C-alpha cells in the first residue's frame, strides 16, 4: 500500500493507505480527526470541507495520496491555545449551529471566504455557501455569524500562523 506524508494542523503525519482512500477517510479513520464529517456521496453537502494548501476543498473528493507533501488544516486546528477563532466564536454567539454536523465544513468554508473577501455582503455570503448544506438552521444565523466574524476580523486581524 502506498505511503503518504503530509502536514495536518501543523504536525507531520504519515500513513499507509489504499490508493482509493479519500482524504476524509485518512483524516477520520487513520488520524482520528473526526471533526471533519461525511454527509453525502456526491460532493454536494460540504460537511467535509478542510483547507488544502490554504484553499478550501471537499475532502471527500480528494484522494489521500494526492496530498503528499501538502499542508492540511482541519476544524481541530483552527482554535489556537484554546482560544476560538473569531468565526468559531461568532457561530457560537449568533447561534449559527444546531446539531453541529454541518458546522465544521461551514466554518472552514467561511474561513476561505473571509480570507478572500474581508467585507462580504449578505448576498455574497449566501452565494459563497452554495456548496454547504445545513438542514437545521435555515442559514439565517450562519449568515449572521459570518458577517459578524468578518467585522471582527477586520477590526482585529489575527496574526498569521
Amino acid at each position, binding site marked *: 500500500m502506498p505511503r503518504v506524508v503530509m502536514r495536518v494542523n501543523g504536525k507531520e503525519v504519515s500513513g499507509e493507505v*489504499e490508493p*482509493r482512500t479519500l482524504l476524509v477517510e485518512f483524516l*477520520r*479513520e487513520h488520524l*482520528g*480527526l*473526526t*471533526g*471533519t*464529517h*461525511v*454527509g*453525502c*456521496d*456526491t460532493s*454536494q*453537502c460540504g*460537511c467535509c470541507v478542510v483547507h488544502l494548501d490554504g484553499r478550501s476543498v471537499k475532502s471527500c473528493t480528494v484522494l489521500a495520496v494526492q496530498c503528499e507533501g501538502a499542508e492540511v488544516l*482541519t*476544524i*481541530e486546528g*483552527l*482554535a489556537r491555545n484554546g482560544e*476560538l477563532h473569531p468565526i*468559531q*466564536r461568532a*457561530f*457560537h*454567539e449568533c*447561534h449559527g*449551529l*444546531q*446539531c*453541529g*454536523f*454541518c*458546522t*465544521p465544513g461551514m*466554518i472552514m468554508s467561511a474561513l476561505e471566504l473571509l480570507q478572500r473577501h474581508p467585507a462580504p455582503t*449578505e*448576498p455574497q*455570503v*449566501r*452565494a459563497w*455557501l*452554495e456548496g*454547504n*448544506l*445545513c*438542514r*437545521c*438552521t*435555515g*442559514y*439565517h*444565523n*450562519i*449568515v*449572521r455569524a459570518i458577517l459578524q466574524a468578518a467585522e471582527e476580523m477586520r477590526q482585529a486581524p489575527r496574526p498569521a500562523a
Partner: protein
Amino acid sequence: MVEKGIGQAVPRKEDRRFVTGRGRYVDDIRLPGQAWAVFVRSPHAHARIRRVDKASVEGMPGVLAVFTGADAEADGIGPLICGWMIHSRDGTPMKVGTHRVLATDKVRYVGDRVACVVAETLHQARDAAEALVVEYEELPAVVDLATADEAPALVHDDIPGNLCYDWELGDRAAVEEAFAKAARVVSVDLVNNRLVPNALEPRAALAAYDPGRDEITLYLTSQNPHVHRLVMSAFNNIAPEHKLRVVAPDVGGGFGSKIFIYGEECVVAWAARKLGRPVKWREERGEAFLADAHGRDHVTRAELAVDADGRFLALRVDTRANLGAYMSTFSSAVPTYLYAPLLSGQYRIPAIHARVRTYYTNTTPVDAYRGAGRPEACFVVETLVDAAARALGIDRAEIRRRNFIPPDAFPYQTPVVMTYDSGDYRTCLDRALELADYAGFERRRQEARARGRLRGIGIGCYIEACGIAPSQAAISLGAGVGLWESAEVRFTHTGKVQVYTGTHTHGQGHETTFSQLVAETLGVPFEDVEVIHGDTATTPVGMGTYGSRSQAVGGEALLRACHKIIEKGRKIAAHLLEASEADIEFEAGVFRVKGTDRRKTIQEIAFAAYVPASYPADLEPGLEASAFFDPPNFTFPSGTYVCEVEVDPETGRVRIEKWVAVDDFGRIINPLIVEGQVHGGLVQGIGQALLEHAVYDRESGQLLTGSFMDYAMPRADDVPSFTVEFAPGSPTPSNTLGAKGAGEAGAIGAPAALMNAIWDAVGTRVEMPATPERVWRAIRQTQMPQAAE
C-alpha cells in the same frame, strides 16, 4: 433576575465541542476490533427473491459473514412493528403487512434490505456486498398513490386493494347538512408532496456484545433511545430490555427520521452478538434517500362551505395517503390523529368531517417528518381560506379575522377531538401584517409590474398540537405507549447539579435551556449544571424528542423534580436553622427564616445532605429527586407567517422578498434558540413549497431523486433572512412552565404562506413544489389561455 435564567438569549453551552470539531457522533466512535456491515438492497421495486447465493462471496478478502432474512427468522428476530393501532370506519383493524428486518419472500421497494455483509474493513464489506449474487423474479410495481387501489399488483399478497385502512373523523351528517344550506362552497384538489428528511448526519449504528455480562451496547443515531430499547427487546427479540443499552450520543439532526426502529439497527445488534465482536454500519447518502422513512405524500380533495359573509360553516376533507411498502413505527398516526384533528385551524368551523385512506405502494415507507400531519392539515385549511376569500371578494386577512376563534373562547372544543388551550390569533395576524406592511403591498405590486415582475403576498395562519401527549388520550386513540416524560436532578457534595433527562437533544439545545431552567428554579449558577441525556444506562426512562415535546413535557418534568429538591432542602434547612419548616422561604438559591437574616445556601444544604453531621432524624440523606410528567392536554402553539414573493414571468423563478413570522409559543426559555428553531422550520417548509420532491418512476418504481444532485435541498441563496417576532404569548395551562413547544411551527405554517403568495402573484394555484417550470406554465395558462393546450 437570575443570570442566564428563563427568558434570556443565552448562547448554547454545547457549542464549544461542535465548533472545535469535538462533537461525538456515532460514526466518530471506534471500538477495538470493530467489523463493518454493509446492506445489500433491492434494485427492484417489487420482486420475489429466488435465491441469495452466499457462496458467491465466500473466500473474498475480509468477509466474516453474510446474513439473510432466513437467518434472522431462524434466530427468532421478530419483525418491525407499527406502534399505533388505527381502525377503519367499519371497525376493522388496520391491515399490517409483515415488515422483516431482512426480506425473505419478496422485496417491496428499491432499497429494501435483502442481506447484510460483515467484513473486516468497510471497503471489503462494500466489495463483497457488490459481489453478492441475488436472484429475483421481477413483479409489476404499485407506484402511483392515486391509483394504488386499482393497481393489478398487491404489495402484500394478503392485503386487498393495497388498502391499509379507511378511517374517518367527525360528524358526516352535520357536515352534509351544512353544505346543503351553504351560500357558497369552495373546493380544491391538492397534493402534499413527498419529502426526504435528509438530516445531514446519515444514520449509523455500532453494536458491541459483552459475553461476560451477556449485554449488548448499541450506539445509535436515535431521537429516543429508550423507545428503541423497548421495541428492539419486546418485539424484535434482540436482547432482554435490561441487557440492551442504547446510547444516542451527539446526533446530527433527526426531524422525525431517527425516531423509528429500522431493520438496520436490529441486524447490526444481532450480528455483533453472533460474531462476538463490534459491528458498525454507516449509511451513505444514497442509501439514506432510499432507506430513511420519507414524509408527507398525500392527495386531497377538500371543500369548505361558507355563508354569504364569508363565515365558515363546514369542512369536508378526503385524503389518500401513501404508506410506502411497509408500516413504519408511527406511520399510521401521522395521516390520522396528527392530521385530521388539526383541520379546524385557527377557526370556528362548526362541522368537520375527514376521511383518510392509506395505501401501500412499492416505495420507501413514509412516516413522521417535521410537523408530521400538521403541515398537511395547515396547507389544506389555509388554501381553502384563500379560495373562499377569492370566491367572495373578501380581503384575505379580513376573512381570517371574521372566522378566528376569539381569545375569550378558550378552552375551545373543536368538532375534531381537540380542546385548544389558549391563543390570541388576531393579535398575531395583525402584528405580522403590520411588520410586513400589508397595507402598502398594492403599491409594491404596481412598482414590480412596472419592472415586468409579478409580485404576491400570502398569509399562513397555523395551529399546531404539541407537547405530545396526554398518555390516556393517546392510548385511547390507538397509541401503544404512554407519552409522559421524565427527569432527575442530582446535587453533588460540592453543590453542582447533574440533570438526567429522558428527552434527547439533536440540535434543539436542551443542554442550555434545561440549565437555564434549573438555574432559575434552584438559584444555582448556569455553569454549575450539567445535562445528561441519550443513554439508557444512565438516564431515567423517557420517550424522547419529537412532536415539539421536550420543553413542554420534559421541561415540566424537570421543573417538578427541582421543586421536590426545594421541598427536601426546606426540611434540611429548617433543621439546621432551628426553625419550623413553614417559616423557611426559598429564593434565588437561598433558604431563609422568614423575616430574619438566618440563611443557608442550597449548596450548603446539599453538603449537609451528603455529610449529615446534623440532620433531621426522619429524613434520608442525599439530595436528588426525579419526576415524571404526563400532561393533561396537548399544547397549541399558533402564529401567522406572511410572505412576499416576486416572480419572473420569463423564467417562472420565485424569489422570496420578505418573510415575517409572529409566533405564540407561550413562555419561552431561550429566545435565541427558539428563533433558530423557527428559522430552520421555515426553510424546511420553504423547501417543501419550492424545491423538494421525491419522485418515483411510475413504471419501474425507481427513485429518480436519489441524491443531492437530483433532490433540491434549500441552500443559503434560495432563502431570505427572516423577521421573527414572538407574540406576547398566551402561556398554556397544560403545564406550569407555560411553554408550548416550538420545534415544528416553521415547517407547518411556511408552505401555506408561500403557496398563497405565489397564487396571489400569478393568479392561479400552483402545486408544490412550485418549480420554475410549474410556475412558468401556470403563468402561460392564465395569461395566454389559447396557449394552454
